[in-house]
């Protein structure tokens, strides 16, 4: 698979403030954030506009100064209606007065600071970082793996973090060592980024508890389970979390954002995104306030060289296609790609020739061809045996399939089918139990 890291050498450029930003309240896994501003309010850069809506949630800050225009539902890229705060900017970009480094002296204060920073998994998952770092028993953590693999084609925003903000990443590591008592830290970087590897190798002093692992640049090296397997050799069992095998994986940009907040009090309100793809005139890395409409970001990159027929959040392997260019930059957006007509063309599906390429290329040793057969036969029991739930939807199977079978789509649908089946089985079992109980009582 080609890497297309065209923008790796481009230092991120800050784009001019957009006229309007639309900030959805759901940019993370968990409960949506609750707005604390109302229409007509003046806001400044770095000001809280929404507080966390629960434990698994995250607060949201404004990246612009201006006036709140409305709080309304918007249709997101997944086709769901989510509340969003729309702010008309005034172009002044005044920093909020209340910004100050938080007081962090112990674990609880550290976790609170992480929560207040508004940082979520910036590698793409959007899982609230504070929740990930809240571990029942600190002794469970054997290793923290800093994910700098950045295996998706095109994307270079993590690369830029590791080059431009290596100090912040390092400070983040020291925070983890201090408060989470982490003994072993591994920075996992694909070997197509020698500059990043070199940077961190220089920073690692003997006995500092940090090591750099240069990983072969083979997609999906940055997949959580794949990374854990290739750095510490542990296998995360089905339905378990990395912490169950003693590991925490945290993206390098996520960690840098946490360190930035603790050092300066500046929360997460803008993102470095890689803008690339065949329809983009001048691909580059752009720093944009969260909520900036995609069209403004593309505009900043010289606009389109040809009509964009497919636009993605994220990379071409796992990215999400967006329906329109009004969609905003989200917390976990690390790239936006626009493709021309030729690249957006959907390949025609033909008969499976049972070549086994999907099996050979699955990083988790699944058999997509067999999962597809089971799915078409509506054989949910076999889907369980084939372990479809392990699938991380990395897309390798569909990428290599010479018959262009929609294998990722089938796996997604198979998971839903299996879930329904398991729920039905459970209900059936309970019914059976209730019946037996009734029988027993009847016979008494």
């Amino acid at each position, binding site marked *: 698979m080609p890497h297309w890291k065209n923008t790796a050498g481009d230092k991120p450029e800050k784009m001019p403030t957009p006229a309007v930003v639309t900030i959805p309240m759901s940019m993370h896994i968990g409960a949506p954030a609750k707005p604390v501003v109302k229409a007509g309010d003046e806001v400044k850069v770095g000001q809280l506009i929404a507080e966390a809506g629960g434990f698994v949630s995250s607060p949201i800050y404004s990246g612009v100064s201006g006036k709140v225009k409305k709080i309304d539902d918007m249709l997101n890229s997944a086709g769901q209606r989510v509340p969003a705060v729309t702010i008309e900017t005034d172009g002044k970009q005044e920093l909020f007065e209340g910004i100050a480094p938080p007081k962090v002296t112990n674990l609880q204060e550290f976790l609170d600071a992480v929560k207040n920073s508004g940082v979520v998994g910036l590698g793409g998952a959007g899982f609230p970082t504070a929740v990930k770092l809240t571990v029942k028993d600190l002794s469970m953590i054997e290793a923290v793996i800093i994910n700098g693999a950045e295996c998706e084609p095109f994307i270079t925003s993590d690369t830029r973090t590791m080059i431009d903000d290596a100090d912040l990443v390092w400070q983040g590591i020291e925070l983890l060592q201090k408060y989470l008592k982490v003994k072993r830290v591994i920075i996992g970087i694909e070997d197509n980024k020698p500059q990043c590897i070199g940077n961190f190798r220089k920073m690692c002093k003997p006995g500092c508890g940090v090591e750099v692992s240069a990983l072969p640049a083979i997609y999906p090296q940055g997949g959580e389970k794949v990374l854990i397997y290739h750095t510490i050799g542990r296998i995360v069992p089905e339905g378990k979390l990395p912490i169950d095998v003693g590991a925490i994986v945290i993206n390098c940009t996520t960690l840098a954002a946490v360190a930035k907040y603790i050092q300066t009090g500046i929360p997460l309100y803008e993102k470095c995104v890689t803008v690339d793809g065949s329809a983009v005139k001048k691909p580059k890395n752009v720093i944009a306030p969260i909520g900036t409409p995609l069209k403004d970001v593309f505009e900043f990159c010289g606009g389109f060289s040809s009509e964009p*027929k497919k636009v993605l959040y994220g990379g071409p392997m796992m990215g999400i296609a967006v329906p329109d260019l009004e969609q905003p930059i989200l917390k976990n957006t690390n790239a936006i790609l626009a493709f021309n007509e030729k690249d957006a063309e959907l390949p025609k599906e033909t008969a499976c020739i*049972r070549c086994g390429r999907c099996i050979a290329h699955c990083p988790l*040793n699944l058999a997509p061809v067999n999962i597809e057969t089971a799915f078409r036969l509506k054989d949910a029991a076999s889907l369980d045996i084939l372990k479809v739930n392990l699938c991380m939807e990395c897309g390798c199977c569909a990428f*290599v399939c010479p018959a262009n079978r929609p294998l990722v789509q089938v796996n997604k649908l198979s998971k839903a089918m299996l879930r329904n089946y398991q729920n039905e089985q459970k209900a059936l079992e309970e019914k059976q139990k209730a019946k037996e109980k009734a029988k027993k009582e009847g016979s008494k």
Partner: protein
Amino acid sequence: MSNMTVSVSPHIKDKTSTKSIMRDVIIALTPALIASVLIFGMRALLVTAVCVAFSVGSEWAFEKIVKKPNTIGDLSAAVTGALLAFNLPVGIPLWQAAFGSIVAIVVVKQLFGGLGQNFANPAITARIVMLLAFSSTMTTWVFPGLVSSATPDALSGATPLVILKGETSAALPSIRDMLLGVHGGCLGETSAIALVAGGIYLLVRRVISWHTPVAFIGTVFLFTLILGEQPVYQLLSGGLLLGAIFMATDYSTTPSTNWGRIIFGVGCGLITVLIRVWGNYPEGVSFSILLMNILTPYISKLTAKKPLGGAEV
């Protein structure tokens, strides 16, 4: 911007397609075709053309009749036709070659659901059908002639395997002739050099993996070495190279895991030697592949990879 495509990831795809794979197989078969024309004359080309034409034609006609989408563009029928032709003696009557092609495509492939659904190799199965139906013409070997000999000379033509079996007093051809293919046999199976060149091309293009051919050929070599049956001649004679490189690597009828491919190859090798040494037929490659085709689902099941993180299956 309402005309943007929204689809499920991944949004990129490598360039390999069914058609490109089949095109590679055809390219890999070309050296053997050229060799066969040089060894057996222009009739080799004629037989191949008839088989390809009838394979493609019967696929087209069958799909037309049962109102299925036309798939002759994927080139798989052309590959089947060429492989069948390579398994026929050059003097085969053309109507018999045409009949075999129709059996391969309609009976063995399409009646089971078409490409990817058949459990037996169409070319191999059709060859076996022809061997039983037309046993005389299927075992009439013409002596290798020159390019000029347009009319095959059917006077002599014991294959090396027949000679090895001691059923004739003819002398074995030299190793050089064995490598070049200047000896009796089916039209596409004799030139070891041409077949190996095609195999290397397929390996480089990653169309096939080394597992089955190496296991198959290696087993025949070792087994005949142990039995004292002239392993080098065994390796270069009959349809072994053609079968191991081009037929035992067919996707839908062989296992899709690497261990499965090794087991498949070893099984083919053992059965081939058993038939060659103790069987009634001088050649066993076709039968061995067909028998192993039947075992393929079980081998696949037995060698399924263990999912990373999955509990015991």
